[in-house]
C-alpha cells in the first residue's frame, strides 16, 4: 500500500476536485490536503525503501512477470518526494497569485492528475503501464495548456499535442513491437529477455524507437520545438510544475530503461546519444541567449539542461547515472523556482519581456536575492546544487576519456551565465523604463504576496541545502544507482 499511496492520493484528489466544481475554496482545500498527504506518503516511502533498498508490489496479486509491477528504489522514492515538494510549492504559489473564485475549475484536478501521472511513471515497472501513465501526463498537460481557452493558448496546445502525440504513438508502437519481439512487458523480465541470445539483436531496433519517443518527450535536439512553442502560454505556477517535471520524467524513464532494462544496448547508441546531448546543450542555450522573454529564456534553458542529463545517460556507468540523478533532482527544483520567480518578476515589473522591465534590485531586494541564488544554481556556480550536478557529470566524462563532451558541458555554462546575467542586468539593475509600472503591483491571490514569496523561499532553501551539503543526497543516489548497467536485480 505504501507503494501505491503516492499514486492513489493525487488520483483520488483529482477525482474529488473534479466532482466539486462549484466550490472553489473547498476544491483548493482538498487539493492542498491531497498534496500534503502525498508528501507524507512520499516521505514514508522514502524511509521504507532506503537508499539501496527496493519495494515491489504485483498488482492484483498475480505472479510476476504476468502482473503489472510497481517498484520503488532509492532513486524513484527520492523523485516521488521531489515531485510532492514541487507540488506543494506550486500549489501555495497558485493560491497566492490567483483568487479562488477566478481559478478555472479544471485547474486543481489537472494539477493532481499531472502529479499522479508523474509519480506513477517514477514507480511503474511495466512497459505498457508506463505508456499509460505517459498518456495521462500528456492529457493533464494538454488540459493545463488549454485552461482559459484563449486563442494563443489553443495554438500552443495544438503544437504541443500534435508533436507530443506523435511521440506517444511512436512509444505505443515501440512497446507493441518490443512485446512482440520479447513476449514480455515487465521490466525485470525484459531485462532478462533483452540479454537472451536470440532476442537481443532484434530488440535493438525497437529499443531505438522507444528511446526516440522518450527523447521527444524529453525535449532533446532536434525534437524540442514543441517545448518553447507551448510552455510560455502557461501561468507561472503551472509553468513551474510542467517545466519542472515534464521533460525530467522522460529523462528518468530513459535512465531507467537504458540503465536497468535494456542495459545490453550496443555502444553505438550511447555514442549517438552523447552527441545528441551535446547538440541539445548547445542549441538550447543558444535559444536562451537569443530570446528576451523571461519565460522563453527559461524554456530554452530546460532544453539545454536536458543535454546535461542525456550526457550522464550516454556515459552509461553507475557514476554517470548517479550524476544524472543528482542533476535531475537539482534541475526540477531550480527550474521550477526560476519559473516561479519569473512570475513574480512579471507581477512586480509589469511585463515578462526584459526590454520593458527593470529596477527590481531596489524595488524587490528579496526577489533579487532569491533570483540570484537560483540563477547561480542553474549556472552551476560553486557551491550550488548545479555545480555538483555538473561536477559529477564532467568528472565522469573525463574518467571515460570523453574530454570533448566534458569540455563542452563546462563551456556551455558560460552561455548560461550570460543569459542569467542578462536577466539580472536588465530586470534588476537597469532602471525601469516606466517606473510607474513598478509601483504597487503584487500578487493578487488569497494568500497575498507573502505566501508566494514564502513558497519560493522554501523551495530555494532546499536548493541551497543541496548545494551546501550535497553529500547525503549524492551518497543516497550513488547507492541507488550502483547496479545500473549491470542488469536488473532479482524481483
Amino acid at each position, binding site marked *: 500500500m505504501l507503494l501505491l499511496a503516492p499514486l492513489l492520493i493525487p488520483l483520488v484528489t483529482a477525482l474529488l476536485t473534479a466532482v466539486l*466544481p462549484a466550490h472553489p475554496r473547498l476544491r483548493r482545500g482538498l487539493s492542498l490536503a491531497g498534496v500534503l498527504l502525498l508528501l507524507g506518503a512520499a516521505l514514508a516511502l522514502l524511509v521504507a525503501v532506503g537508499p539501496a533498498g527496493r519495494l515491489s508490489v504485483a498488482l492484483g496479486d498475480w505472479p510476476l512477470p504476468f502482473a503489472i509491477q510497481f517498484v520503488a528504489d532509492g532513486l524513484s522514492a527520492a523523485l516521488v518526494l521531489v515531485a510532492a515538494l514541487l507540488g506543494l510549492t506550486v500549489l501555495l504559489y497558485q493560491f497566492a497569485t490567483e483568487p479562488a473564485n477566478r481559478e478555472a475549475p479544471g485547474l486543481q484536478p489537472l494539477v493532481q492528475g499531472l502529479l499522479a501521472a508523474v509519480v506513477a511513471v517514477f514507480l511503474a515497472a511495466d512497459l505498457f503501464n508506463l505508456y499509460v501513465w505517459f498518456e495521462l501526463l500528456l492529457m493533464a498537460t494538454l*488540459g493545463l495548456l488549454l485552461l482559459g481557452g484563449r486563442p494563443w493558448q489553443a495554438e500552443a496546445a495544438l503544437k504541443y499535442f500534435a508533436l507530443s502525440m506523435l511521440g506517444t504513438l511512436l512509444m505505443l508502437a515501440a512497446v507493441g513491437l518490443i*512485446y512482440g519481439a520479447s513476449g514480455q512487458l515487465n521490466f525485470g523480465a525484459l531485462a532478462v529477455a533483452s540479454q537472451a541470445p536470440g532476442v537481443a539483436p532484434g530488440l535493438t531496433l525497437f529499443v531505438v524507437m522507444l528511446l526516440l519517443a522518450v527523447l521527444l518527450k524529453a525535449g532533446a535536439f532536434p525534437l524540442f520545438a514543441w517545448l518553447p512553442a507551448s510552455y510560455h502560454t502557461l501561468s507561472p505556477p503551472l509553468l513551474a510544475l510542467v517545466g519542472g517535471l515534464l521533460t525530467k520524467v522522460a529523462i528518468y524513464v530513459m535512465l531507467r530503461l537504458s540503465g536497468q532494462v535494456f542495459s545490453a544496448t550496443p555502444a553505438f547508441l550511447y555514442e549517438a546519444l552523447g552527441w545528441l546531448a551535446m547538440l541539445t546543450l548547445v*542549441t538550447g542555450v543558444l535559444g536562451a541567449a*537569443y530570446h528576451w522573454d523571461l519565460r522563453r529564456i527559461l524554456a530554452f534553458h530546460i532544453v539545454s539542461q536536458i543535454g546535461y542529463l542525456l550526457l550522464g545517460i550516454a556515459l552509461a556507468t553507475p557514476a554517470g547515472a548517479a550524476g544524472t540523478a543528482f542533476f535531475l533532482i537539482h534541475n526540477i527544483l531550480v527550474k521550477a523556482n526560476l519559473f516561479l520567480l519569473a512570475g513574480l518578476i512579471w507581477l512586480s515589473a509589469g511585463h515578462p519581456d526584459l526590454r520593458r522591465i527593470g529596477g527590481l534590485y531596489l524595488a524587490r531586494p528579496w526577489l533579487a536575492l532569491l533570483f540570484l541564488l537560483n540563477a547561480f544554481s542553474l549556472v552551476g556556480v560553486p557551491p550550488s546544487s548545479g555545480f555538483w550536478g555538473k561536477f559529477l557529470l564532467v568528472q565522469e566524462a573525463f574518467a571515460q576519456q570523453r574530454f570533448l563532451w566534458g569540455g563542452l558541458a563546462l563551456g556551455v*555554462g558560460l552561455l548560461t551565465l550570460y543569459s542569467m*546575467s542578462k536577466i539580472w542586468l536588465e530586470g534588476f539593475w537597469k532602471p525601469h523604463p516606466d517606473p510607474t509600472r513598478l509601483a504597487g503591483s503584487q500578487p493578487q491571490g488569497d494568500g497575498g504576496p507573502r505566501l508566494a514569496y514564502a513558497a519560493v523561499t522554501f523551495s530555494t532553501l532546499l536548493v541551497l541545502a543541496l548545494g551546501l551539503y550535497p553529500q547525503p543526497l549524492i551518497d543516497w543516489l550513488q547507492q541507488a544507482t550502483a547496479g545500473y548497467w549491470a542488469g536488473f536485480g532479482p524481483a
Partner: protein
Amino acid sequence: MSMTLTLAVLLPFLGAAGVAWGSRLGRPTAILLALLVVLMPAILILSLLDPLVAGETHLEHFAWLPAAGLNIAFRLDGLGLLFAGLILGIGALVILYARYYLAAEDNLGRLYAYLLLFMGAMLGVVLSENLIQMLMFWELTSLSSFLLIGYWRQREDARTGARMALAVTGAGGLALLGGILLLGRMTGSYDLSIVLASGDLIRAHPLYVPTLLLILLGIFTKSAQFPFHFWLPHAMAAPTPVSSYLHSATMVKAGVFLLARLFPALAGTWEWNHLVAGFGMLTLITGAVIALFQHDLKGLLAYSTISHLGLITVLFGIGTPLAAVAGIFHIINHATFKAGLFMAAGIIDHETGTRDMRRINGLWRAMPYTGTLAMVAASAMAGVPLFNGFLSKEMFFGEAVGVANAMALGWLLPVAATLAGAFAVAYSLRFVHDVFFNGEPVDLPRHPHEPPRWMRVPVEILVVICLLVGMLPALTVEPILHLAVSAVLQGPPPVHDLAIWHGFSPAVLMSILAMSGGVIIYSVRKPIYGWWDTQGGRVDFRRAYERLLQGLLTLAGRVTLWLDQGSMPRLLRLFVAVALILGLAGWWGSGSPLTGPLTLLPLDAVSLSTGLALVLAAIATLVWHRQRFTALILVGAVGLMVALVFAKFSAPDLALTQLSVEVVTVILLLLALFFLPQTTPEDPPSPRRWGDAVLAVLAGLGMSILTWAILTRPYESIAGFFLERSVPGGGGRNVVNVILVDFRGFDTLGEITVLALAGLAIFALLDKLRLSGQRVAGPATAWHWDRHPLIVASLVRLLLPLALLVAVFILMRGHNLPGGGFIAGLITAIALIMLYLANGVAWTHARLPDKTHPVIGAGLLLATLTGLASLLFGHPFLTSTFGHVHWPLVGEFEVASAMLFDLGVWLVVVGSTLLILIHLGLMSDASRDGLAPGTPVRGSGAGRSAGDSPPGPGC
C-alpha cells in the same frame, strides 16, 4: 580538530550579512562592524603564526563530499599568510577609505557587504588546501566582483563593465575547473599537499599540456593577461575604493597567486616557460604602452596594473627560484603602491569631480599633501630607487638578463623589460606632472581642497610601507618573503640579497636606460599622443570580445529560428525524418535480419479483400482529403476495415470496440467539422510536397517492415498465462475482458483516468468558447433545412430504452462473452447522442444534465474503491475475487469483483464521451439560443441561408 582557519574564512561571509543588516543603524556602526569583521580573521590567522615560522604547514580537514574526493580543507603556509595579510590589511584600509569616498545617497552597508563577501572569497582562494574548494572561492570572487563593479547599477558602463568582467573571468573559471579535474585525474587527489608533491608525475603525463592550457586560461583571464586584459579597464566603472581593492591586492592577484601556488606542480617545462613568460611579456608591454595614452586617471592606473601583472607573470614564467622570489616580492610592492595610487586618484576624483587628466592640472597648490603622497607612490610604480618598486624591478631586470642566454629569442625579454620600464617611468611621470603641475586646472566641476583627515590615513599608511620596504627591505619584508617563497618553491628559498645597491650589473644599466628613456618619452608626449589618437585603437580586444559576443548572438538567433520557424508541418517533417534516420541506424547497428524464421500462412480471399479495401480506402482518403466530409467518411471506412480484420483474426472484443469507437469518433469529428471550412485550401504543388510524399511513404514502409519483422518471428509471450488462468484465476471466460479488468486492470484504471482528464480538458476548452458555425464556411454547408425530422426524433425516443438495454447486456456479459464496460459505455453514449441529434439540444437539455462530471467521478471512484477493497482483505491493490450466485429464473450466475471495476469503466466512458460530444454541440450559437426543434431555417434551401442564421451542427 582545529578549525581556526575555517572560521577565519567563513567569518567575512557571516559578517557581510551582519554588516548589511547593521548598516541601518548608520554609517559609524557600519564601519565599526566591517572593521571588526576584518579584524577577527586577522587575529585568528595570527594565532597560527608560531608553527608557521617554524616551517610547518597548518592544515584543517573536514569531510564534506568524500565520495567525490572532496573535503573542506584549509591550509596556511607562507604564501597563504602573505596573501591573507594583503587581503585583510588593504581590505581594512579600503573600508576606512570608502566611508569618506561614498556619497551620502549611496548605500554604504551594501558596499561593505559586497566587499566583505569578496574578502571572504579571496581568503578562501588563498587558504584552500583542496583545489575544487579553491575553485569555488575563485568563482565567488568573480561573482562578488561582478556585484562590486556594478555597484552603481543605474550606470550603463557599470553594467557593461561588470558583465564583461564576469564573462571573461567566468570563462576562465570554467577552464580552470576543467584543468583541476584533469589534475585530479592525474594525481588521484584534489588536495594541494598531494598535487604539489606530484610535480614530476604531472609534467610527464600525456594530459599535461591540455591541463596546463586550461589552468593558464583561468589564470590569464583572472589576472588580465594579454589578450584577455580588456575587461580590467572597463571594471574601472566601479567606485574607486573597489578598484583600489580589486586591482591592487586581490581579484587580479588571484591569478598570479595561482601561478605561484601551482609553481611546484606545473612549472619547469618548455611549455610553461614559453607560454607564461611569453604572454606575460606581451602583457607587460601592451599595458605599459597603453597606460601612457590614457587621459582617465583610473584608466592609466588600470593599464599600469595590467602591465605590472604581466611583469609578475613573466617572473614566474622564467621559472628560476630567484625569479620566483622577485615575483612574490613584486606582488607585495605592487599591492601597496597601486592601492595607494588608486586611493589618491579617488581623492582627486572626489575633490575635483572629474578624472580627466586633460582638465585636472596644477593641483599642487590646492592639495600639496595629497600630491606628496601620490608622488611617493608613483615613484614606487616607476621603480625609482629608495622606493619598494625599485627593488623588485631591479631583480626582474636581473632575471630578464639571465634568460637572454638561456632561451631561444631570450634577448627579447631584456629589451621588452627595459622598454616597459621606460613607459612605466613615463606614465608615472604623467600621473604626477599632469595632475599636480602642468599649468592651471581646466573647468573643474568642483573647487578642490585637501580631503578629510581620515580619507588620507589609508594612503599615508601605504606610502609609509612603500618607503620602509624600499629603504630597509631586509628589516621589513624579508621574513614574510622568506616564508612565502619557501611555500612557493616547496623548499628553502635561494640565496638572495635585498639590498638597494648590488654594484654595477646589466640590471643597473637597464634601470638607467628605463629612467632616462621614460623622461624622454614623456617630454615628447605631445606628438606621441597625436600619433596614438590617429591610430584610434587599432588593436582593440574589447571590440574583438564584442564582435565575438555579437557573432554568438547572431548565431543563436539563426540557429533558433532555423530550428523552429513556428511551422507545424516542418516540425512534423523533422520528427519523421529523425525517426527514419534513427530507425535505419538502429537496424544497421543491430545487424539483425528483418525477416524472422516463421513460414507464412497461405493467402485467403477474405484477408486479401479486406486488406485491399483497407489500402483503397486509405488511398481514397488521400485523394479526397480536401473534401473534408468525404475524407472523414473514408477514414471511418478505414476504421471499419480494421474492425473486420480483428473479426477475421478471432478478436470479437477488439472488433466491437473498434466499431463503437469508430462511430463515436466520426460523430465527434462531424460536430467539429461544422465549425471548420468544408474544404482544405489547396497547396500549390512544390518540390517540398514531393519530399513530404517520399517521407510519408518511407515512414509507412518502415512501420510495415517493423510489423513484418515481428510477425515473422516466433511469438512466445506471457499471453499463454492469461489464457490458462482466465477462468480459474479471473473467473471469466472472456480473456480480453479479464485482462482489461483484472490481470491488467491497473492499466485500465490509468486509461479511464486519461479519458476522464481528456473530458475535463476538452470541457475546459469548450465551456467558454462560442462559435457560430458556417461563418467561415461556403454555401455548400447548410447541411439540411429540417434539423430535427419528426420521424427520426420519435424513432430515437423509442429506440433509447432498447439501446440502453443492449448496453447493459453487453456490460453484464462482458466477463464471459465479448463485451464489457468500455464497449457498453460507448454504446450508451451513442444512444444518448442520438437523442441530442434527433431532438435538438434544447429538448434534450431539459431532460438530461449537460455536465456529466459526477458520472465520471463516480465511475473513477468505483473503480478505485474496488481496487482498494482488496486491501481490506490483506491483498495488494486490485486483487480480484469471484463467486457464483444462483439467480432465480436466470440460473447460475458468476459475480466477480472485477465486474464492479468494469461498471466504473462504463460510467467513466459514458460520462467523458458525453461531456465532450455535448459541449462540442453546445459551442454553437444556434444550439445555445435554444431554437425550437424543427424550426425551419429561413430560405429552406441548401446554400442561400449561409451567414444569416446558422443552424447548429444538427442539434
